[in-house]
């Protein structure tokens, strides 16, 4: 009886574990080149990463390289799409991302192309890159050379394609949150000064204008700046109705935590942290083997 119970328990537990074993997990996006097999030397990886970072700075497009030992029975097309959907390489709405996936022990590889690059890197072109540039080198064991040659050709194709201009790099550093209380605190401070100098109505409008100019100067978005400016002027107007003692201390108190929670910098231009831009994929590209 006890053996039967144990058997049932084991069967139930296996039922939980086995589905999880069915598909391998998508690797973490730790950088532009993710090598789970240790094939590429750190010098190769650094060189490749620099090339890809330059592409992003120059054109805004993102290319990533993934080397896994095996896809464990899963078709490389399906695996590549899962990785692409998880990593979201390429800019949102522009969808200019491309992924080179190599399953080393399976001896299969795939170039997965985002919607926006399907004109530059067509299926036929992807197949040509694989057959002419990558697999000959792979066959002779030169993985770094093969990947580098393939990536070079992809970069060449992307260079020739007309895409939206990339954002200037240092503006990418700030993840601007519209509901950020930082500008609110700023509005409190400036509004006090302006209201004393110019009176309630004009002081509020001047506060809004100053905040708008500052936001526009720092973040370059005119619509956001105008919106924030209007909100700031309304806030400044309302603040005037609050008792003056309360507003000065609340201004001092909120500065501490709003300053801290203000900037959440996600720099995408240096090798420190690379993240996908939200691009989507439709299954374009080509696969090959060697």
């Amino acid at each position, binding site marked *: 009886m006890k053996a039967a119970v144990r058997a049932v328990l084991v069967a139930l537990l296996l039922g939980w574990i086995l589905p999880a074993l069915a598909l391998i997990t998508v690797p973490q996006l730790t950088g532009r080149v993710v090598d789970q097999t240790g094939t590429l030397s750190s010098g190769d990886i650094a060189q490749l990463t620099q090339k890809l970072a330059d592409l992003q700075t120059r054109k805004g497009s993102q290319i990533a390289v993934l080397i896994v030992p095996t896809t464990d029975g899963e078709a490389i097309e399906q695996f590549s799409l899962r990785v692409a959907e998880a990593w979201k390489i390429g800019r949102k709405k522009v969808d200019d991302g491309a992924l080179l996936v190599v399953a080393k022990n399976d001896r299969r590889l795939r170039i997965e192309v985002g919607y926006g690059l399907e004109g530059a890197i067509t*299926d036929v072109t992807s*197949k040509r890159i694989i057959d002419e540039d990558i697999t000959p080198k792979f066959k002779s064991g030169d993985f770094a050379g093969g990947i580098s040659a393939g990536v070079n050709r992809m970069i060449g194709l992307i260079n020739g394609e007309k895409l939206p201009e990339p954002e200037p790099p240092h503006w990418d550093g700030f993840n601007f949150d519209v509901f950020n209380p930082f500008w609110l605190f700023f509005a409190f401070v400036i509004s006090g000064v302006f209201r004393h100098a110019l009176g309630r109505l004009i002081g509020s409008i001047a506060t809004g204008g100053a905040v708008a100019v500052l936001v526009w100067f720092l973040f370059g978005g005119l619509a956001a700046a105008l919106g924030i400016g209007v909100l700031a002027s309304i806030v400044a107007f309302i603040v005037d109705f609050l008792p003056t003692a309360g507003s000065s201390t609340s201004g001092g108190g909120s500065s501490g935590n709003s300053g801290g929670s203000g900037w959440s910098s996600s720099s995408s231009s240096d090798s420190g942290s690379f993240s996908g831009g939200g691009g989507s994929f*439709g299954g*374009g590209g*080509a696969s090959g083997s060697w």
Partner: protein
Amino acid sequence: MRKFFTVLATLSCLSLTNCGYNAIQTNDEQVKASWSEVVNQYQRRADLVPNLVNSVKGFAQQEKDVLLGVTNARAKVGSIQATPEVLNDPAAFQKFTQAQGELSSALSRLLVVTENYPQLKSDALFKDLMTQLEGTENRITVARNRYIKSVQDYNVGIRTFPNNLTAMVFGYKDKPNFTVANEKEISVAPKVDFNPTPAPAPSK
């Protein structure tokens, strides 16, 4: 008292979540968009077929049956309009998926035949067309998967409580999903036979 609570419940349902009406609309539009993408990719495949037939004809014009089969299947697909209204008519949906399935079978028969022609297989144009066909088939698979997911969201949305009441009031039905045409057939493993088929006897 009960009347008051009934009215209160209805009002709160209507105001807070629109009783799921908006959610149903969103999901419905998502289904239509995914369906358009599926149709788009199927159309892309149909557009490849004439070139493929021509390139095969250049090397294997004696394979008349197979080539004719592909051409006819493509004509049949072209004659079926696949607007979003197809989703509300199960018979039309069935007709559409059946026609696409026939084109798939005709194409795979053509590809099997091309295995006998090494010259054709090494022709550059044919190789490019094969790459494009594989890419399109992959895109079709992706589009179908996304359609299936959107239909799942929609169907779950109109079948769970309390949105199923709203769906009933406005007459929203389940949307059709892709089925495998012949489940019994594919559950049997295919027989692999490496013996080449004997050459047809020469006609006297």
